[in-house]
């Protein structure tokens, strides 16, 4: 018997700049949505972790220029970074899709680094991909004509 597609109960969409400051703005926006849905704290936290890591990756690395020379709003004069977040509440899960117009980055295939050596050999940084994969139930990446599209699922 074929499975019917999941029903979309409700959804939200908002566009942010690629600035560091907008990571916090997006986080507060998602928190308001999860509060309105009365989602468990653990699920809300997992969504916040994935949002933070995905958006900060884009803000720091998504520009075609280096982080140091990017505009304060992200990106550069010809191609300002833009990040759209779409949240869909389905019957069995919540799907959060983040799209950006930055440089290609396949988060699904990126290595999930953890601390696996003595402190003196640990290179600080690079733990974000592992957090995204650990705190979501599924992650799917597509490179589109507009840029990167990542959907992370959280089971309800």
């Amino acid at each position, binding site marked *: 018997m074929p499975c019917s597609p999941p029903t979309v109960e409700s959804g939200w969409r908002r566009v942010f700049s690629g600035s*560091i*400051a907008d990571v*916090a703005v997006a986080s507060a926006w998602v928190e308001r949505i999860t509060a309105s849905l009365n989602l468990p704290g653990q699920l809300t936290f997992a969504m916040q972790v994935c949002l*933070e890591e995905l958006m*900060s990756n884009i803000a720091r690395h998504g520009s075609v220029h280096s982080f140091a020379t990017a505009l304060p709003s992200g990106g550069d004069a010809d191609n300002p970074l833009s990040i759209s977040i779409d949240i869909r509440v389905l019957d069995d899960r919540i799907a959060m899709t983040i799209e950006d117009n930055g440089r290609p980055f396949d988060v699904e295939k990126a290595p999930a680094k953890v601390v696996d050596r003595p*402190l003196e050999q640990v290179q600080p940084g*690079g733990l*974000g991909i592992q*957090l995204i994969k650990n*705190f979501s139930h599924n992650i799917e990446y597509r490179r589109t004509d507009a840029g990167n599209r990542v959907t992370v699922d959280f089971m309800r």
Partner: protein
Amino acid sequence: MKLETVDLENGVTKISLSGRLDIQGALKIDSEFTAIAEAKKNIVVDLSEVTFLASLGIRTLIVGAKAAANNGGKLVLLNPQPNVESVLRSSNVDTVMPIINDATPLATVFGA
């Protein structure tokens, strides 16, 4: 993100953080946290008032731990909230920065 420091007995310094240790929080305290870690030896980082932790916050903690180790000391994490602790453990950060609670004697932790 707020940072407060107090010197305890036996040469141990306690750094109390409060707020979200996200990308903005990490950028805000990074320089001060690293400077303290470079100047001290044995450090307890009180995470009980930290409500959120992201990878850039972990980076700040690791830089501090490496600085303390360079001084022949150690950096440990005190009383993280459950969600914050889950971030630490999922990254295996607890293998290089021990997680302790109030019941853990500091003398045992630092051998002081």
